């Protein structure tokens, strides 16, 4: 067991260059101490990793188990099966009846849930800290002893199909994004969304599910996080008791690489919408790549900040768009930057796209201002300090960085990179990644337009 607790010193991040009209209750400081959250770590012989973040504020505990498998591990025929497996895990084991997980956790005053992402699947229980063992037992049992009753499995397929109707099919933004993403990735499983295609959902077999479960649900492919009113040593002892006898297994992955994109892809989608939408996908590297921090800053400066180039010029000055937004899909494999723009009219879509490109060119030619850089750094510093309010979120961060990159401290490295980030770095990222020949553009228009 290794205990880590340090105080992280950040220098110079509050050196704001702009003038201000406000009064101050305290003098600005060039140094701010960010208290680091302490955590304990333990690894069982079978490779199961466990992080514990003690937090004694209230007598509750959150138990989470993270499996290193998600939709990017799925062959196209069984797209969405990671998510279907997440649902199937609530159908029970020999000892846990169908939906018993919910009933047992509710009985002690807690709740259970789960989530699937592109590169992980997570199960969680929050309950009174004295009942941690219940969560530990539930997850240990269903890590290896899942029962798949065909009739129940079929019923759950209907639930997942309905979830797809609700989340994707009847939401023009989500369904458009799904199609643009599919066009951007032709070989890699990012071709499909997390929930998968409807055809796949209806066609999974019990054998498909059994094979997938057996392949990925193993101690050496999982990370446990426990945050709350617990004692680390007791948690580790409990983990040994429940998971210690499980054998590790070989985990093989698809190993599919997306071929280089050499020309811009374009698709026009007709949807039941009153307003048009432009969606663009740019390819970016995996989440621990050295350029990710610059890409996140670029994302803020170009699109997401209130004073971003797109908001300032396309929205406020030229009044061409109603809204803009973007996010980085930053995962275990190379991902993407998704940008969306909502033009004021269908007729202006081409000129909106051209103006967007012109802003990228301007950013590359003129660089980033000191103010823009300062705003990004301020935002990240503030987020970092406010994130300390939730120790559960910190535990999740450790788990995700461990699953993806076996580097729980990645967040610190990236924060350190950010403190040294320059405008030149952001400009270089734009030049390297915001390339039209590596982009996929979707024009989403109202039906018949």
């Amino acid at each position, binding site marked *: 067991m290794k205990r880590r607790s340090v105080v992280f010193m950040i220098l110079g991040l509050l050196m*704001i260059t*702009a003038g*201000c009209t*406000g*009064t*101050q*209750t305290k003098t600005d400081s060039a140094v*701010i101490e960010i*208290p680091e959250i302490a955590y304990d770590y333990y690894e069982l012989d079978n490779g199961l990793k466990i992080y514990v973040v003690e937090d004694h*504020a209230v007598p*509750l505990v959150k138990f989470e188990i993270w499996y290193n498998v998600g939709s990017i591990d799925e062959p196209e025929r069984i797209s969405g099966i990671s998510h279907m497996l997440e649902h199937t895990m609530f159908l029970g*084991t*020999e*000892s846990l009846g*169908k*939906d018993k997980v*919910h009933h047992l956790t*509710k009985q*002690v*005053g*807690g709740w259970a849930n789960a989530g699937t992402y592109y590169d992980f699947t997570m199960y969680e229980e929050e309950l*009174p800290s004295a*009942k941690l*063992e219940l969560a530990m*037992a539930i997850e*240990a*049992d269903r890590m*290896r*002893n899942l*029962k798949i*009753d*065909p*009739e129940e499995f*079929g019923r759950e397929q*209907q*639930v997942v199909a*309905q979830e797809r*109707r*609700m989340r994707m*099919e*009847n939401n023009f933004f989500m369904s458009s994004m799904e199609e643009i993403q599919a066009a951007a990735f032709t070989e890699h499983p990012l071709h499909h969304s997390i929930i998968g295609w409807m055809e796949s959902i209806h066609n999974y077999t019990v*054998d498909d599910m059994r094979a997938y*479960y057996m392949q990925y649900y193993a101690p050496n492919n999982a990370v446990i996080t426990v945050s709350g009113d617990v004692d680390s040593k007791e948690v580790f002892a409990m983990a040994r008791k*429940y998971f*210690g*006898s499980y054998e590790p297994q070989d985990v093989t992955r698809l190993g599919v690489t997306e071929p280089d994109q050499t020309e811009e892809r374009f698709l026009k989608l007709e949807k039941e*919408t*009153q*307003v048009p939408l432009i969606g663009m996908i740019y390819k970016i590297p995996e989440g621990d790549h050295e350029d990710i921090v610059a890409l996140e800053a670029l994302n803020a400066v170009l699109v997401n*900040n209130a004073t971003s180039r797109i908001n300032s010029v396309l929205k*406020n000055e030229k009044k061409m768009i*109603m*809204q803009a937004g973007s996010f980085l899909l930053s995962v275990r494999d190379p991902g993407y930057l998704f940008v969306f723009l909502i033009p*004021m009219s269908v007729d202006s879509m081409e000129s909106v796209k051209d103006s967007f490109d012109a802003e990228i060119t301007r950013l590359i030619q003129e660089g980033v201002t000191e103010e823009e850089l300062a*705003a990004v750094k*301020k*935002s990240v510093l503030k987020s970092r*300090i*406010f994130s*300390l309010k939730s120790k559960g979120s910190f535990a999740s961060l450790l788990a995700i960085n461990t699953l993806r990159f076996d580097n729980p401290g990645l967040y610190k490295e990236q924060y350190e990179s950010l403190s040294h980030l320059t405008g030149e770095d952001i400009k270089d990222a734009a030049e390297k990644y915001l390339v039209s020949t590596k982009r996929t553009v979707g024009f989403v228009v109202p039906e018949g337009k």
Partner: protein
Amino acid sequence: MKRYIVFIIALAFFIPAVRAEVQFSPELFDDLAQSVNKVPEIKIPDYERFVLNNGLTVYLVEDHSLPIIEMAGFIKGGRAHERQDIAGISDFMTDLMKTGTANRTQQEMDRFKELHGLSFGMGVKRDYFTLNGNALIEDSGYLLDLISDVLMNPKFDADYYQRKLMELYQGLSMARSQDPVLVDMIFYRYMYGDHPYGYDSDIDLVTNAVQNYSPEKLMEYYRATIAPNMTVLVFSGDFSIKEMKKEIKKAFSQWEKAPLTLPHQKSLAPKDKYGKIYIIHKKTATQAKIKMGFDLFSRDYPEETSFRMANMVYGSGSFECRLMDTLRVEKGYAYDARAGYNANKLGGEYAVTTDVEPDKALDTYQTVIREMNDILNRVKPITDEELFKTVNFFNALMPKFYVESIDVLESVVLNVEIWNESADRINEMIQKYNSIDAATAQREFEKNLDPEHFMTVILGDKDQIVPQFEEAGIPVEIIEM
């Protein structure tokens, strides 16, 4: 009608149990799941309340756990001030107030907030406006400056006015593509009729009203709704109350008091739509989006806590509630099904919501009613066990919502200043729900709910949905959008 294959395989597949130190069994799990949680007590932090000469009420609490400051606030009145001809104006007014002021252009405002890491928001509720904000403690002065500037110095005739108006029109147009918005428009229009509580959901009404907006109208509305003597602010953070009090006085003392009154309390509309079913036709919809409900009690209803416990059993939305148990676990129809309610100052509404495949619409409608009737007719009354689980759940989780000082104090202030309730309302509620029995919960459920009065709105393809109801002899009205 689209049908999907359901797999029916004769034999269950069992994966052999792996040998572990622990032998899993139903008994083991039952044994581990025994727990009776303590009745929690929420600690209300020491705070100071003071009122400035202009009537602004301020609550302060010191919290030195992190170098931050957080603000919450309320302005009495809210959407209840609106009239039909200016429906939705509260949202547009607060949007413009956040965009810029007489002292700062939009660009200056945005830059100021970003460089100093300031967050600030305003929202509109039916009976009050909300405020929230935060910053690092080093920037607390900037935060106060921003809040006071926004509240005191609005500029509605700014150069961005026309652009914001265009964005509003586009936003309303975009809303017409969103199924939940369309369902809510019909539901709340018929629920609240000519009452401001339903205006914001009615995109037709708001779209018509927008043409009546003008900078002058907005200023007039601002003067009728926003004033220090209607406002309560709460600050929590890494400051000394003594110093912060000085800063607040400096920031807000110039804000002039106004002789405002709360909105006229007109009664809610008559319920002539109850018992009816409306189908909003959308040919391309691949699901039926269902909302069923009726009017409910107002905020001051004395047995609200008992009703809440009963309704959790029926439709909390979690897996153990009756609706989820039937519609998802047993039938596999829905991903989510829940029953919720809003209790406003003048009256509230109750609604069951779910989404299902179109050919399941009738059965879902009938299941929602049957499950409610099974409780009402005491075929399956609320049991002691169900109530115990609900109370036990609340007892365990309630403290986590009141860990942060700002959350506790915000709740205290809402109860005291907006609802005229006790400062200890949170703990009173905890005592209350721990004192009720299944019979009390059952009685409250029976007293307040009646499926005969359900007004139902279903969005979907009428060609798939209507025949089901016609065959069952249930009349429906079609709404073409």
